[in-house]
């Protein structure tokens, strides 16, 4: 081989290795960055997905489940944060709930990072920023923006088409790593299916009466700014015995509650409601209701980053949501949200919507079905709006400093396995 050619080959390899190193460091940071939150004083117990599906132990799909039990008999609420990690307002809302919750009656169970593995990867080909930052009086904290799917490092390969269990419905191949397409899950299935099964087990074993799934959606998507709830549910016994698919109207209707909640919230922000279709399987608003006795509510906030057709994809676009292209498309009447570029879709607004959206269904469920009453509180949209108007970051305003001495006993590192001693105190 010519010396010149050899030098070029070696140089090319070195350049490639340097590029791999630079990018690799960033990927490593995203994968291994650990967020820390401070749970409210009402925390009574922490469980893990692996308590419900043991094979998840020591996998990147294991994740903590925070339980706040008032000790007073009442309804049980389950809140699922981060089923799609690339919808970060969902995670932030769950974190703010965990940090500020007060429960007077009933029990609240919160999973802040339902797809932990997916939060450790970025959306391929979509150039998502790795992190976004929130400023508080005590400092700036960074949080991950993940993927829609489970990280391929943890679940690989994909099939050529994904067939949802047990409906047998065909979905896109990569949806086998999409937590919100794999419900009700399988105990011995893929990693994502097992996580889905763990969530169903939480709902069934903990006697959950209301289950809330927090998402974000593109404004081109009709179901943005919407509650989705099932008007009918599957006759499980008949299905398991005969395989026949029969839906019936349950005694308690989450769609009724969602309609009421949507109307009530409309004084604060646009919140529509939509009936869960019988023909689309694998989603929480269908399968949680079909495979347990809980009332299900899926919430979508408007997030323009998911719309894909945006300008340069910076962190500011994620946290402020101001985009000229989406304004143009809105002006042509093609979006399902009254988008105004001057206001955008800021993070506080999306988080606030989730917080008030979740609280409203808890309140309204108690109104419709008093036996399910759960009395709890956390920050609301209106409180956050007021703080924003004073010029402060309202998300940061409700976050607690994990390094402050008064918080150290309740600071929890969110990871796929317990980190530090605090977990031991709450794990039975």
């Amino acid at each position, binding site marked *: 081989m010519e010396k010149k050619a050899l030098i070029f080959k070696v140089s090319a390899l070195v350049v490639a290795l340097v590029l791999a190193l630079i990018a690799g460091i960033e*990927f490593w940071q995203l994968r291994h960055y650990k967020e820390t939150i401070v749970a409210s004083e009402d925390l009574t117990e922490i469980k893990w997905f692996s308590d419900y599906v043991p094979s998840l132990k020591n996998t990147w799909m294991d994740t903590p489940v925070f339980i706040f039990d008032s000790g007073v008999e009442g309804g049980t609420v389950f809140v699922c944060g981060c089923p799609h990690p690339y919808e970060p307002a969902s995670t932030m809302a769950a974190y703010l709930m965990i940090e500020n919750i007060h429960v007077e009656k009933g029990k609240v169970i919160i999973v802040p990072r339902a797809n932990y593995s997916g939060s450790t990867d970025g959306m391929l080909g979509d150039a998502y*920023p790795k992190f976004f930052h929130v400023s508080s009086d005590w400092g700036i904290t960074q949080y991950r923006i993940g993927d829609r799917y489970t990280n391929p490092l943890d679940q690989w390969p994909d*099939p050529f088409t994904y067939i949802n269990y047990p409906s047998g419905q065909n*979905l896109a191949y990569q949806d086998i790593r999409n937590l919100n397409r794999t419900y009700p899950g399988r105990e011995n299935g893929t990693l994502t299916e097992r996580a889905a099964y763990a969530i169903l087990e939480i709902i069934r074993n903990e006697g959950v009466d209301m289950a809330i799934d927090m998402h974000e959606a593109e404004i081109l998507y009709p179901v943005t700014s919407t509650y989705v709830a099932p008007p009918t549910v599957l006759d499980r016994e008949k299905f398991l015995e005969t395989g026949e698919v029969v839906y019936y109207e349950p005694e308690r209707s989450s769609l009724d509650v969602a309609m009421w909640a949507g109307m009530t919230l409309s004084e604060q922000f646009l919140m529509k409601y939509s009936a869960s279709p019988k023909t689309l399987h694998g989603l929480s608003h269908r399968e949680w209701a079909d495979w347990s006795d809980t009332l299900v509510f899926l919430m979508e906030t408007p997030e323009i980053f998911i719309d894909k057709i945006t*300008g*340069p994809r910076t962190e500011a676009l994620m946290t402020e949501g101001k*985009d000229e*292209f989406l304004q143009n498309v809105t002006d042509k009447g093609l979006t399902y949200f009254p988008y105004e570029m001057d206001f955008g879709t800021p993070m506080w607004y999306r988080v606030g919507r989730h917080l008030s959206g979740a609280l409203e269904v808890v309140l309204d469920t108690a109104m419709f079905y008093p036996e399910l009453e759960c009395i709890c509180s956390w920050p609301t949209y209106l409180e956050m709006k007021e703080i924003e108007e004073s010029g402060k970051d309202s998300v940061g305003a409700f976050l607690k400093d994990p390094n402050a001495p008064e918080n150290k006993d309740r600071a929890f590192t969110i990871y796929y396995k317990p980190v530090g001693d605090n977990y031991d105190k709450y794990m039975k």
Partner: protein
Amino acid sequence: MSTTMLTLILLIIMIAAFVLSSIKLKSPDISMAVAAVVLAIAGTIAVPELGNPVRYLVEGLFVNLDLALLFIAASIFVNIYAHSGAIAAITRGVVEKINNKWILMSIMGVLMLIPGALTGAGSVAIFVLGGLVNTVLEYLGISQKKRTVFICFFAMLSAACPPINLWTMLMTAQANMPYVGFTWLLLIPIVIAGAFTIVFVGWGAKPQNKEETLAKFPPKDPKLKWWRIVLPFVAIVGLFLLALYDPWGLPVLGLPLMFLIAGLVALLCNPKKTTFKEYLGILDDTMEQVFPLVANVLSIGVLQSAMAATGVRGLIGSTAVGLPLVLIYVLIIIVGPICQGCFNYGVSIVLGGPLIFMFNTLGMDVTVICAALSLIFPLGDTLPPSRIVGRLACETTEYKESYLSFFKTLVLPMLFLGAMGVAMMVLHSKLAFLY
């Protein structure tokens, strides 16, 4: 500066970088990578908040990593299978037994549809059957150019063919629709377009002398029994069927592993005494053979990432969905395939998803629209910058004339399929009975 102006400038810079490097380096793959790097650097200068571009440039290499592995595995299977003499034996059998030109061409067409229909990738159809089909068409007296057209067009059709159409899958995933109801909506236009292409390619061709043609094939290997020929195909088809009909009874194998298992079966069925070293040689040759395609799909991912990060993707997508409906009908046949050339399957996300939402807003039947778009997008596999299928077809038939001369002949069947796609979009409500 407005975002529109900024991204327009970035788009021009990207195109300039691509054209210049294509002229200078004569490789579409590296030109795509160069265009992506130039775009990323220009984007970072214009919008410093984008941060370190290296991360998303490298991240882009992962977009089509599974597809690259599929290409590699499918090629390994085919080369091991071909080494056993099975492909030559099949070709000989087909030429010996079937005398009617149209029947022979139809069989070749249907065969070509199968690998892409199962994997979603037209290139796999060329890898697996391109050589065989080329030989048979040559025997039928079809010119090299038209042979290339046949292989290329049927590879595109096979990618669109159900059960696995990746464009439809990606669009349904984005629009929260089940991947259900597309079989006839896709299959009927594919059969019509396939029949049209068979007539277009086969018209006027005069088959060569059968004995002379057969004499050109390698001699029959008496040890190559029928089961040795059939078993590798039984393995791959069996695995497909198992995965489709008993998805919860076996673990997820993934297409690459399925092809490698079939490759292993082909190796065990090989009647020749092939040494381990010879197999290593086959693997080495396969890797070299398939590398340009691997480089191509990986580079598209990089370009896709850079275009997304800088907002160029947004400019294209938002402009397209903002057009009046009539203009969309007129332009989709051009814009759709061009975006396919740039984004590969990503076109479903960039253009397909927003268009589905837009048509949904207008109260149109999005299942039919989705199928129609999934027939139009694959046409872009013959367009720059990537032109994956077109290039591969040319390589398979060793077509040495200019790409443009081949493309000119291909345009007619492409327009035929594109027009059917547009007609489906216009007549969406009348076709709802097909699902």
